């Protein structure tokens, strides 16, 4: 039968790297397990719990909160993002591109004299150079932020949990992914309980 899924499967037969690895854990209903989530009472509780997961050596886990919690990078052990470097690169590119554009069009390709002023003076080129530098930096900032975050991605296994949908209101949730090397259904659940998590829930990935 011809369907997008089947076509993809046929292509993946020739390109093994396209296949998702076999699930390590399967739920009772036979679906791949995405991970386990637990709810925490307040920002203090979730920071303390985050430190426990960081120290236990988990790598594929996350704290979900309706607002950025102050200092969470340190509690979770998140490395600094490279976004500022990308933004700087974009600024330099924008500036150079703007200078190239202006020198090429007004000094090299088609010279014309206005008020007897030199065609190759740098001063009048500053405003456009600045603006294009800012423009490219802004696009890189937002585009880079979304790209590094893996967005846009409109669906996600976590959205299947009704409890998770309340994170955007006032809930604090820690989710540990089954793809984490340290993940163990029982041990991870125990750690979530010990760190103060409540309403622990198994999330399936029904792709």
């Amino acid at each position, binding site marked *: 039968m011809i369907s997008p899924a089947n076509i993809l499967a046929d292509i993946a037969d020739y390109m093994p790297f396209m296949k998702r690895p076999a699930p390590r854990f399967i739920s009772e209903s036979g679906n791949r397990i995405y991970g386990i989530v637990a709810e925490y009472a307040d920002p203090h509780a979730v920071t303390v719990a985050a430190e426990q997961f960081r120290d236990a050596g988990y790598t594929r886990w996350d704290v979900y909160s309706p607002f950025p919690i102050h200092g969470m990078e340190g509690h979770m052990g998140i490395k600094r993002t490279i976004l500022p470097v990308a933004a700087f690169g974009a600024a330099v590119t924008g500036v150079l591109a703007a200078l190239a554009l202006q020198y090429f069009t007004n000094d090299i390709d088609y010279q014309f004299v206005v008020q007897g002023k030199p065609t190759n003076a740098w001063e009048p080129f500053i405003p456009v150079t600045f603006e294009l530098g800012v423009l490219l930096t802004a696009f890189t900032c937002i585009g880079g932020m979304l790209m590094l975050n893996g967005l846009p991605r409109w669906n996600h296994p976590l959205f299947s949990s009704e409890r998770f*949908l309340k994170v955007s209101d006032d809930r604090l949730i820690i989710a540990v992914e089954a793809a984490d090397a340290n993940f163990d259904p029982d041990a991870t659940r125990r750690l979530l309980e010990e760190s103060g998590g409540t309403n622990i829930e198994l999330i399936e990935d029904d792709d």
Partner: protein
Amino acid sequence: MSSIHPDQITAERLAGLRDAPGDYVGPAGGADGSLIEDPAVRAPLVLNDRSFAEVTETVCSYAECGPPKAWLGLITITSLIAAVGTGMILYLIITGVGVWGLNNQVDWAWDITNFVFWIGIGHAGTLISAILCLLKQKWRTAVNRSAEAMTIFAVVCAGIFPGIHVGRVWFAWMLFPIPNSNGIWPNFRSPLLWDVFAVSTYATVSLLFWYMGMIPDLATLRDRAHLRMLQGRERRLTLPMPVGKDIVLPFVPSAERVAAYIYGFLALGWRFSSRHWHRYEAAYLILAGISTPLVLSVHSIVSFDFATSILPGWHTTIFPPYFVAGAVFGGFAMVLFLLIPCRQVMPGFKDLLTLRHLENMAKILLLTGMMVGFAYSMEFFIAWYGGNEFEWSVFINNRANPAEAPYWWAYWTMIGCNVLSPQIFWFRKLRQNPLAIWIVAGFVTVGMWFERFVIIVTSLHRAFLPGEWHMFFPTWVDILTFVGSCGIFATLFLLFLKYLPVFAMAELKAVMPQADPHGGGHGHDPVASVAGGASAGGASASKGVGP
């Protein structure tokens, strides 16, 4: 709160050894509890001890209910005005720029006045989001979303005028460096071309900034719509009727489904992950950093349109800072002019937009009003001190002297509205009174329009030869185009009030006391905060949107 305060008087007062001064507003904090003057007590940014859920509810409920009758009535009126404005634009494009009152001498008048007026108004939003973010002014979280929205709508209105005043609009693409069959390029040494780049960059970056700030709040609206669908609480879409019952529309998805799809699409799948928040805050800080010089550059470049000419009255080096101060002044006035009525009409907004916010903005009006007043007097002083008789003649014979200048009333309206009216904010009672602030904001908005009119028309209408002197009289098309642009602005703002999150919920929640991971604001014991600070490790690297 410790009794060892660096300020001796405050320390004594906190220890109960000294009474408060006469008009001191104590810990009770005035009318709504936000006007605490005591430097040792932090004024609450959200009143009545609201929980996160209550903030979400207050902000989202407006976007989720059906359109109220009053809102429908208002938007009907404003969109009719906007339609008239659009009709005027079409009439101008079809007929030519001659439908305006421009003449050989006054070849820029209401069109460029309106352009500079609107683009100036468009400065408050980015100023609040960018500069106040860098200065860590937490109170900005209550006003930044609506101010940014106002910025974008004002830039939309501003963009209309230079777009249509050039005459043959279908050649407007020649402003951009696009290769063409004539083999010529735009002149990058012209301030008018700088203007094209500055305004279009500003519009784009403001839009990106606004949208990026809104992604988490759009995700909140998406999740709430999704939850209502799961709980079976769906509302049918109806066709509102002016009288009688609304007509339920058949064969269309429920309001919740439409909301979940539209907000969901716009939210880009945001899921409030801390790893995402980390990059988000970094991106937000960089955007704030680059928007700060950007917002200063835009009105500087707009002022170059005038300052680089050799026309007396325009040819002044004070123009860039003077224009920027005026833009901030006019922008804040418009923010206050729009938000004070919203605060009165929409219940729950008073908890988020407190008297303290209004007072802070009134202080900014007072400050920038005096900067503008200083610029007016300095311009006048230099016209005399510079010894240029043409410059002096523009100021005396074209503007200030009622016996000589036909436009003296415009000049003195400008002085009265912009310099004198904000002076009432020296009185605490008046700068804490929403009605007084609203009236002054209205005066300032009028005054800032007259400022641009004075700069443009009074400088142009009398050239070096008296034989070239012409007055400017607006035609009905001039007037209706400007009124129409106000209609476009009001319509867009009303749509924003109804369908988008009017407050930055995620940022508001982050500055509420219960969001503090180190024990929630009260009873901040030093041991816990030291431990928290140490374990945070790279806490200095955490780029705070809020705290």
